[in-house]
């Protein structure tokens, strides 16, 4: 697992790594091994370049100063930027719908304590909220 790479053509470079590997050690007299990761910086030459990593779909996560996306690298990651955006949109639509239900529950509590004005205002806000989410749903459908 690699993060924050600065790749150069020669392959010789230095950057922060998070290594994932099996590690055997002893706790309280019991020796066991488990996979773990740790980060450190060192200089080395990659056995293969970054494009090859993408081509092989080798699991790795990194930043290209592009907000976490892969659009600028030209590689073929397991998930395309569009797939990621669509997944994020789907999450947001579902998330907003869940918040709308929470607001409805809050409005119901306001009604129970006798504040009808506040209840009506919150329910009006829920309606506006749902209209906005409907617009997002249309965008989401167009992405699929």
């Amino acid at each position, binding site marked *: 697992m690699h993060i924050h790479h600065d790749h150069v053509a020669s392959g010789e470079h230095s950057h922060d790594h998070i290594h994932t590997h099996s590690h055997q050690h002893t706790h309280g007299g019991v020796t066991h091994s488990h996979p773990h990761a740790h980060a450190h910086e060192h200089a080395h030459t990659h056995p293969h370049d970054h494009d090859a990593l993408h081509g092989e779909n080798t699991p790795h996560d990194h*930043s290209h100063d592009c907000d976490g996306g892969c659009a600028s690298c030209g590689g073929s990651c397991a998930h395309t930027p569009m797939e990621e955006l669509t997944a994020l949109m789907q999450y947001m639509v579902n998330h907003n719908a869940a918040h709308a239900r929470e607001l409805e529950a809050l409005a119901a509590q306001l009604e129970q304590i006798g504040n009808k004005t506040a209840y009506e205002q919150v329910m009006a806000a829920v309606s506006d909220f749902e209209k906005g989410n409907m617009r997002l749903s249309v965008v989401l459908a167009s992405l699929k």
Partner: protein
Amino acid sequence: MCLSTVYKNTMEPESILMRNVMRIDCKGGCVILTDLMERQVTIEGSLQMANLVDGFVIVKTGE
């Protein structure tokens, strides 16, 4: 219920370990992050704090 950005030790852009994190597991001295696309990153360390309103988490590592 919101997605979070997870940082290593300090809340700075260069310390971001993962964005859009939907699940965090702590196991065997490691913190396992899973994002919306089901990708996982495992870091040796512990959960220092989680701000569930602003959607950020800080993992404390030995560095």
